[in-house]
């Protein structure tokens, strides 16, 4: 018996000991000289590419060219010429080198964010979205773009400038002023004199040099950053410690916002950035310019990860920050099952919960904790670019290349019933590809409604007149109106697709449902092997983008009829005439031009019936325990989640009062608040 016991002990010890191993130690590394060499090498590379392309263009222009192509090549050449005046990507200057005629501007006149009533302190309890523990706390590199990243990076770290979440104007964060050169794409920034990292070091222009170095370095596994920073920027220059200049590849409206929208990597911290970057920085807590940092002791793998408020944060009394980032600590628990998260919320282990699901909102929160006022509910009408959720046609497929068939399908798809029944009337019909951009979105365009007679009329125009015994229309060649819809399998979407299928048969259309694993569905769509795909893009602020989705260069492989894989043009839409509008929309220098071309593009896409817009919600709604307090207006206008702008706070007094009340049985008035100051009266 004793022997058995000692064996058991030995086995347990053996099993435990290896897991007690200390984290791998890394040798110290200094990339300073390597980095300097990289700057030079990269500059040379850019210069060589420039002169090569210039020569190509010149040769091409010397020959015989159609007028349209000549114009296009000429404008590219002009751009290259302008770039050749300042070809270096990385430049280091002193403050004295700054151009003298700069027109410095700033904007401290926008409204404050958050509420003056906000109290600091307390712990806010939340959960890690998706149920898995984040694979890393790095901001870039393998697996860094996980669902937890926005919680510790996008919502926390400060960039030079950004767009004010109430007004949408460019407002200062780490920079306190900026100057846009006359070309509309070169922007100079002055870093705020008080700006400091959480480890006490000053924020300098060198931090952004490091940022660009990291993003362009070959040590990063993801090619995305190299491509993006290489194509969208012409370069970065430091002017001493306090000034820097970022050059965009295209002149843009709101250039100061676009150029300044980069959060820095601290030069000292990333000095060890090298070939083993990913493993070295996997769990290394970084200094931050933002309000919260992750401490090493707060990473409890498999259980929770917490953010702590930076002691003596440099911006804590600054205008746009003083009422935000209030709790001392934010704890994100790992809970595998979404249903369990909801139960934990109802028990009070988690402070807030997004109640988008109609069943949770109307039925599952009809519980005593809500009736007694311990949990409050709020609906907030926000303005945020709508997800362009809908059914996209692959125009390279037979039948779908017929406009009348597509128009018929738009009339044959009953999103109205889906909204009424599956979304319980809480959604509204989506009409545009880019909705929710204020006056940049077409104000009057309406998509085609469900109508059996209009659908059948359109199908008849396309030659589909005969109805088979299965109720599906066919033409004289025996082709049937049968299409498969590809979509990512999801318990919320499945019943909706079944409804769409059922209703379409009334108009003589058969939809075959092809539910796939999200990754497989995405790949199939990216290879353009779908007929119709149900999906959507989360459109980004501040301006709509049509170029990626519809430009003909992304439609077909050059010179063939083979759809080009791995592009965002999932409609396989190609029209050289429309390309011109797309280009002028993307490269527009004024908001007026963006607006005009956007209206024009929406109208074209409506006339060509390239997709079936589905639904959107004009609000988000949330349940929260009453100790979580929000400003008078609840939240900022331009946000799609209640916590992302950190305007809430924890009231310790109310917390104690509530917990006592739950014991003593005292009740508070039930609260179900609606904040509809941003609701469109007549959508």
């Amino acid at each position, binding site marked *: 018996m004793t022997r058995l016991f000692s064996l058991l002990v030995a086995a347990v010890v053996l099993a435990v000991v290896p897991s007690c191993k200390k984290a791998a130690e890394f040798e110290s590394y200094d990339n300073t000289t390597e980095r300097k060499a990289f700057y030079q090498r990269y500059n040379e590379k850019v210069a060589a590419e420039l002169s090569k392309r210039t020569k190509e263009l010149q040769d091409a222009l010397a020959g015989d060219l159609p007028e349209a192509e000549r114009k296009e090549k000429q404008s590219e050449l002009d751009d290259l010429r302008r770039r050749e005046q300042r070809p270096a990507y990385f430049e280091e200057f002193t403050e004295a080198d700054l151009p003298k005629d700069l027109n410095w501007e700033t904007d401290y006149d926008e409204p404050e964010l958050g509420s003056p009533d906000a109290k600091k302190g307390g712990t806010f309890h939340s959960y890690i979205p998706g149920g898995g523990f984040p694979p890393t706390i790095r901001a870039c590199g393998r697996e860094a773009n996980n669902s937890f990243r926005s919680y510790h990076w996008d919502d926390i770290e400060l960039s030079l400038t950004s767009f004010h979440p109430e007004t949408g104007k460019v407002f200062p964060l780490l920079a306190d002023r900026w100057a846009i050169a006359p070309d509309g794409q070169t922007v100079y920034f002055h870093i705020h004199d008080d700006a400091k990292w959480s480890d006490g070091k000053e924020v300098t222009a060198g931090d952004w040099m490091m940022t660009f170095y990291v993003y362009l370095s070959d040590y990063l596994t993801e090619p995305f950053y190299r491509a993006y920073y290489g194509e969208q920027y012409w370069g970065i220059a430091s002017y001493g410690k306090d000034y820097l200049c970022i050059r965009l590849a295209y002149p843009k409206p709101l250039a100061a916002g676009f150029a300044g929208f980069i959060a820095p990597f601290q030069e000292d911290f990333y000095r060890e950035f090298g070939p083993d970057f990913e493993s070295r920085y996997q769990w290394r807590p970084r200094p931050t310019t933002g309000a919260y940092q992750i401490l090493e002791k707060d990473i409890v793998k498999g259980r929770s990860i917490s953010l702590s408020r930076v002691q003596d944060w440099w911006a804590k009394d600054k205008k746009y920050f003083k009422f935000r980032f209030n709790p001392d600590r934010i704890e994100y628990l790992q809970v595998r099952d979404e249903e369990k998260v909801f139960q934990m919320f109802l028990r009070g282990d988690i402070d807030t919960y997004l109640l988008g699901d*109609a069943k949770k909102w109307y039925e599952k929160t009809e519980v005593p904790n809500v009736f007694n006022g311990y949990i409050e509910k709020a609906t907030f009408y926000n303005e945020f670019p709508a997800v362009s959720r809908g059914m996209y046609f692959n125009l390279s497929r037979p039948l779908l290349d017929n406009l009348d068939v597509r128009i018929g399908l738009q009339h044959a798809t009953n999103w109205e019933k889906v909204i009424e029944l599956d979304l319980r009337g809480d959604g509204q019909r989506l009409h545009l590809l880019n909705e929710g951009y204020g006056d940049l979105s077409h104000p009057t365009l309406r998509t085609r409604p469900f109508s059996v007679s209009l659908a059948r009329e359109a199908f008849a125009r396309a030659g589909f007149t005969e109805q088979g015994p299965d109720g*599906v229309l066919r033409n004289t060649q025996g082709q049937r109106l049968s299409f498969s819809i590809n979509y990512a399998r999801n318990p919320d979407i499945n019943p909706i697709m079944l409804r769409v*299928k059922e209703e379409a*048969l*009334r108009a003589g259309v058969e939809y*075959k449902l092809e539910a796939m694993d999200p990754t497989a569905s995405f790949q199939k769509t990216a290879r353009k092997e779908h007929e119709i795909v149900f999906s959507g893009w989360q459109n980004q602020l501040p301006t709509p983008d049509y170029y990626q989705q519809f430009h003909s260069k992304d439609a077909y492989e050059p010179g063939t009829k083979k759809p080009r894989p791995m592009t965002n043009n999932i409609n396989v839409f190609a029209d050289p005439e429309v390309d011109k509008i797309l280009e002028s929309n993307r490269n527009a220098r004024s908001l007026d031009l963006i607006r005009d071309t956007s209206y024009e593009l929406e109208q074209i896409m409506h006339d060509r019936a390239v997709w079936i817009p589905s639904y959107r919600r004009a609000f988000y709604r949330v349940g929260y325990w009453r100790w979580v307090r929000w400003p008078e207006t609840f939240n900022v206008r331009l946000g799609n989640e209640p916590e992302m702008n950190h305007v809430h706070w924890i009231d310790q007094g109310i917390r104690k009062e509530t917990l006592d009340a739950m014991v003593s049985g005292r009740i508070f008035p039930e609260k179900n608040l609606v904040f509809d100051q941003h609701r469109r009266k007549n959508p």
Partner: protein
Amino acid sequence: MTFPRKAGLILLLVAVLAAVSHHYGLSLPTLRWFYSFHATPEQILNAPEQGKLLGIFPANIRHLRENQHHLAGNILTGMVGAVALALLFYGGKFHWNPLTLRRLARFRSIGRGWVSFLLIILLLLLAMLDQVLVGRRALAVKYDGNWYFPAFRESPYPESQFGGAEQQEANYRLLRTKFRDEKSTNRVILAPIPWDPTFDSDEVQPSTLVEIDGKLHRSGEREPYDGQATQYREDDPKVAVRTALFRKGLREGVTSIYDAKGDFIGREAWKAGALVETSVGSEVSPASTGPWQELVYPPAPPSFGKWETMHLLGTDSKGWDIAAGMYGGLQVVFKAAIFYIILTYGIGIVIGCLQGYYGGWFDLVSQRISEVFSNVPFLLLVMIITANIGLDKVTLTTILLIFCIFSWIYVATYLRTSTFREKARDYVAAARVQGASTSRVIFRHILPNAISTIVTLLPFSVAGLATSLTALDFLGFGLPEQYPSWGRLLDDGTSNLSSPWIVSSVFGTMVGVLLLITFIGEAIREAFDPKKFTTYQ
């Protein structure tokens, strides 16, 4: 008349009726199955005009594919007819084996089993009534003095046939409401359950709330109402006037107000039935509104109002009628059971007998093969296969074939053992000495004596089949959505436990049917128990 002749007569009737009704474009319950083997539209489109049938005979494949259901139907009815004729001709000299008669008598004497058997037969007959009992197509419509029978026709009537405007298929439930509201002489007779088992969802059902002492109540309930309620315009009951939250029968919190077109115009705040604050004036005159109504979203509880909106067992979360779904599921189980038994037992009996009778190398090799098969994790394999073909392309036949590939082994094993035992008996030797052929020895002499073990197995394997089908659907690897399924309903019910009518309907039906089958199984085992007739020493 002998038993085979009776059976032959019925079969002949079935075959003739099926063929004739198809010829006249009729769709009779159950008989329509014979002509339901259409080629898929892709198969027709992909078929070449000039091709080779089975790779040998030149033929117009396209034409064949287009007429596949006629051909298949004719072949099937022809086969049934041939069997029927054979039974009629050769069944005259049939005598029941006295042993079998005694067993049957004994089975009949076991009350519980016999009643269960009669109940199952009743269920089978009900299931065969098909669209007469369950379906959205009306049994009969009287319109402008003419009678129409939509449920019994192959091609559907468009709405325009009955005074509608569109070419879509008529919605007979709405038609019935319309005719009644018009108080015309036109009539619609619906099936007792006027819903299709799948792809037939109901609209949102408003249920009117009643006011007692100034507080709203659900009709027939004592407790005041908690939840959302909506008021509609009196002149247009589709346009909402206001939506409000009620607590203990009184308005509380936010009330949203809509204009004449149903667009949102503003809101009011209420507290315990009193208006606190409003963002609109008195733009909506209260006289024009109807009563407060609760909107019942699916899953909707059982309701017994009008025939066309009735849901005997409520609806599931998709808005599909549960009673219809249960009925459809039962039909699938019966259909599956019949083919499963024929296939599995056919293969199992033949192979088992051969293994037992021949023994030696044949036995050794085939035993090893069945060992390999029986060690494959069956459910997992089904999942892999269905995931690979794609759930949408799976048919009942696919699933049944996979089931059969794995389940003949058990039948074969039992039969092999008993054949082994019977082979050594004197009567087998006697038959061989008299010059009986091998097949005659096996199937006329050994099999009747060895079959009792197999017959007792039969009900239990049907029960097993029903549970496996349900389990597969429950896990999401079974039949696609166009097949009604108990498993999917069970899945829906367990994820909507707050709507107890879903899970209790499925649970009740499944337990009931499985119990009946098990009772039959027990009775058969008792009736066929060999210990009753022979003693071993």
